[in-house]
C-alpha cells in the first residue's frame, strides 16, 4: 500500500515535470523565433492573458453559461441514453432494427447539422444543448446495451433461483452489473457533448466560452484565445471528475 502511494507521488511528479519541460522548450523555441510567435503564442503570454480575459471578457459568466449548457445536456444524455439502452436490451426486434444506425450516429459529425437545429430551436441556448445532447447520446446508448448484455449468465440464474421479479432482476442485478460499462459510455458521451457545445457556441457566435474563443480569434488575440481554451479544458476536467465521483458513490467495489 505504502509502496503504491509512493509510486503515485512519483508518477505525479514525472507527469507535472514533463508538462513543465514541454512548455519551457516551447517558450524557448518561440522566443528564438524557430516557431512563429504570431501563430503559436508563447506559454508565458497565454498565462499572462488569463487574468486579462477574466477581468475584461466577463469570463466567469461565460464559464458558467457553458457549464450550465453542459449540465442540461448531461442530464438529457444520461436519462435518455440509459433509457434507450435499456429499451434496446429489452426489445430484441428494436435492437436488431436500430443498433447499426445508432453506431452510425456515433460516427457522424453532428456539429455540422447546426443549421437544422438553428431552424428548429432558433439562435439560443436550446440549440446548443440539443446538439450536445444528440452528439453525446450514441456512446451512452451503446455502452448501456453492451453492459446489460454482458451481465454474467450465472448472476441472472442466482436472481431467478431467489425468485426475483423482472423489476428486481433489473434493479438488483442487471443494472449494477452493467454500471461500470455504462459509465464508460457516460464519460465518452459527456465529453462528446461538451466538445459539440463549445463548437456550436463558436459556430453560431452565441453563449459562453465558444463565443469568447470566436471573438478573441477574430481580434487575433492569440494568447487570449489559448487562455480561453484552457477554461474549456477546465470544464471538461470538472465533468470527468464529477462522473468518476458519482460512479464510485454508486458502485464502491
Amino acid at each position, binding site marked *: 500500500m505504502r509502496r503504491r502511494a509512493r509510486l503515485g507521488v512519483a508518477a505525479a511528479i514525472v507527469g507535472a515535470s514533463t508538462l513543465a519541460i514541454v512548455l519551457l522548450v516551447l517558450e524557448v523555441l518561440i522566443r528564438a523565433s524557430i516557431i512563429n510567435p504570431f501563430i503559436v503564442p508563447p506559454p508565458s503570454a497565454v498565462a499572462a492573458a488569463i487574468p486579462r480575459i477574466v477581468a475584461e471578457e466577463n469570463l466567469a459568466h461565460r464559464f458558467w453559461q457553458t457549464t450550465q449548457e453542459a449540465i442540461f445536456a448531461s442530464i438529457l444524455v444520461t436519462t435518455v441514453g440509459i433509457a434507450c439502452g435499456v429499451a434496446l436490451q429489452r426489445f430484441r426486434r428494436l435492437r436488431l432494427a436500430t443498433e447499426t444506425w445508432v453506431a452510425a450516429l456515433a460516427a457522424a459529425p453532428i456539429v455540422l447539422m447546426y443549421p437544422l437545429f438553428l431552424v428548429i430551436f432558433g439562435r439560443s441556448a436550446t440549440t446548443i444543448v440539443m446538439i450536445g445532447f444528440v452528439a453525446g447520446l450514441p456512446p451512452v446508448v451503446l455502452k448501456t446495451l453492451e453492459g446489460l448484455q454482458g451481465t454474467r449468465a*450465472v*448472476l441472472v*440464474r442466482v436472481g431467478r*433461483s431467489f425468485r426475483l421479479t423482472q423489476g428486481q432482476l433489473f434493479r*438488483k442485478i442487471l443494472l449494477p*452489473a452493467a454500471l461500470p460499462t455504462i459509465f464508460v459510455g457516460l464519460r465518452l458521451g459527456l465529453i462528446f457533448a461538451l466538445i459539440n457545445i463549445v463548437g456550436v457556441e463558436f459556430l453560431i457566435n452565441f453563449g459562453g466560452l465558444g463565443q469568447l474563443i470566436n471573438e478573441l480569434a477574430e481580434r487575433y488575440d492569440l494568447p487570449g484565445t489559448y487562455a480561453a481554451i484552457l477554461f474549456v479544458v477546465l470544464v471538461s476536467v470538472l465533468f470527468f471528475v464529477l462522473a468518476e465521483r458519482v460512479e464510485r458513490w454508486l*458502485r*464502491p*467495489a
Partner: protein
Amino acid sequence: MRNGHAVPSSPPIDDGPALRVERVAKRFETVEGAFVAVDEVSFSVRAGEFLAVIGPSGCGKSTLFNIIGGLLGEYDGRVCVGSTVISGPHPSIGMVFQEESTFPWRNVEDNVAFPLEIGGVPKAERLGRARHFIELVGLSGFERTYPAELSGGMRQRVAIARTLVAEPRILLMDEPFAALDEQTRLLLGDKVLQIQQALAQTTLLITHNITEAVQLADRVLVMTYRPGRIKRIVDIDLPRPRSSDVVGSDAFGRYVAAIWSDLREEASRGIRDDESARRHTAAARHHP
C-alpha cells in the same frame, strides 16, 4: 448436534422424503437431432440426508440440477418438495452454482443478506442473520470486504452462506468446488460437513469428483453416460462426524474403487463418443 446459537429453522415435521424426483426425463432438440439428456430418473432425499449425484461429463447432471432448481422447464415426470410438485424455483430449495456467483458490487455481508433484502427483512435484522452465516462459513472479519479481494474458495463460501441465509429445506449444489484446487476443495469439504451437521441440512450435491462424493455423502447415486440414468446407489457407511481425514481410511479407498469401477465404463463411453464426434467434424473440415 446443533450448536448453541443454531438457526431458528423449524425441523421438517413429516418424516417423508424432503425431496422426491419421480421419473424425470428431458430431451433436447439440437441441429444434429434430438437427444435424451436425462431418462427415467427417480430418487428421493431424506430429511437431513446428504446425497451426492455423480456421473461423467455429458450424463445430464447439470440438466438434473436445473430441473430440480426450477430453472429448466418442459420435462417429463415431476419433482416434489414435501408434498408439493414444483413448477419453477421453489423457496424450499437453495441453489449454489458451479461458476463464481457472488455480486462483485456488494461486500460480503450485503452479498449474504441479499435474499433477505429481496424478502423485505429490515436492515438491522438481515445484517444480524447474515453475520451468523458468515461466521458459520468461517469468514468473520471479512463482512465489509468486496469479493474481488477474496480467494476463489472464500467467494464460494460467500455464495454458500448467501444460499443458506434463506434457510432452504434443501441445499442443492452443482459442482461448487470444481473451480478450486484439490487442497482447497478438501478443506472446503470439511467446512460443508460442519455446516451440514450444525444445521442438519438436507443436501443434494452434483459432482464428477469421486473422492468429494465419498467424503461428503451418506449415499452416492451413480449415473450413466447419455442418456443419463441411475446406474447404482451406493450407501457410504463411513462414521459421522466426518472430516477430510477419512480419505486415508481403507473403507474410503474401497468406496472410491467401487464407484470408479461403475463410472469407468460410462466415462470411457463418453470420451469415445466425444472423440468420434470430433473426428467426424475434423474429417468434414479436411475432406469436404
